């Protein structure tokens, strides 16, 4: 078995985190699980410790991207060559982890994106959000010349090259999105999508819900634009 780590960024997820960790253990009993507690004030950290998973607590709420990146940095420091990132709110079905790992183990790409739109359609979102996601998915596909259906997916399998890129300065602190996919492509990394099962956030808010749509669209346009302005070899 190759050395892989499961990275879960969590912000006040005491209600869901145990289910997610147990779900992962059901699929991979000896998995190395790392939870990044993103400055939350609830019992997330204690619950994770009790379940025997590794936990890193950030000193203040740094944002989804910064929390994930802490996980990537830790993974590299500890010599892991493969990682899976999965959300703490129960959106992602742990059953898909072996599929994601299989893809990176066999070097089919540097970053494997678990797409909610390639698989069976049990993911529901508001109409406007769907339109937005579809638009940026199309735009990304157009720019990198490869079909991407779900650039916002937080369910990914990553190899060492992907980890190194994600641990770098260009990784966004808030929500990694289409701009990161384009950056990956421009940095010469290979991306592949596979179908995964995704549910609407089980309990509490999902990490994306606080995002104001207008700001989101503006930010995405701006970051895609500046990514295109940068030199290809980041």
């Amino acid at each position: 078995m190759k050395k892989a780590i499961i990275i879960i960024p969590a912000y006040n997820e005491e209600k869901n985190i145990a289910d997610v960790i147990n779900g992962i253990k059901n699929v991979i009993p000896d998995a190395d699980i790392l939870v990044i507690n993103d400055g939350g004030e609830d019992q997330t950290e204690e619950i994770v410790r009790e379940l025997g998973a590794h936990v890193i607590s950030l000193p203040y709420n740094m944002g989804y991207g910064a929390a994930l990146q802490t996980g990537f940095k830790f993974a590299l420091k500890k010599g892991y060559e493969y990682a899976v990132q999965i959300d703490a709110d129960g959106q992602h079905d742990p059953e898909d982890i072996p599929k994601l790992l299989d893809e990176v183990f066999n070097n089919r790409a540097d970053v494997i994106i678990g797409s909610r739109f390639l698989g069976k359609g049990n993911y529901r979102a508001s109409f406007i959000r769907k339109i937005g996601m579809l638009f940026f998915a199309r735009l990304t596909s157009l720019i990198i010349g490869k079909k991407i259906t779900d650039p916002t997916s937080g369910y990914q399998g990553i190899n060492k090259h992907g980890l190194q890129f994600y641990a770098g300065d260009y990784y966004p602190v808030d929500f990694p999105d289409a701009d990161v996919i384009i950056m990956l492509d421009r940095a010469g990394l290979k991306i592949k999508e596979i179908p995964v099962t995704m549910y609407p956030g089980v309990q509490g808010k999902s990490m994306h819900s606080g995002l104001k749509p207008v700001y989101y669209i503006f930010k995405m346009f701006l970051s895609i634009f500046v990514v295109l302005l940068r030199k290809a070899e980041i």
Partner: protein
Amino acid sequence: MPIRQKIFALIAAIALCIFIVEMVRRKKLREEYSWLWLLTSFGVIVLAVWYDLLVFITEIIGATLPTTTLFVFALLFLLLIALHYSVKISSLTDQVRKLAQKIAILQSELDEQKEKSRNHESTK
């Protein structure tokens, strides 16, 4: 320029100069930030003493009144300072992020070590 205006401008500029140097001396303001402010007070002194220069600049930029020129440049200057701060804040935010991530990782490793040595002790 009326003599009162001139005296007021000179006093204000010199006071600003002294204030900035004093702040730098007391280590309240870093040298790298002081030069912009010193440059401003110097500019005010030059313009107060050399009124014709102000009139000349007014003509160049197409303003009617010398006061307009002063306001325009004051605004531009404040804008630049604000921009400079935005850039600085962005890089500070970045540095803080890296520090926080590093500390969090080190802390978790430390906790793990402690846990290990505690388990080691108890099995002895």
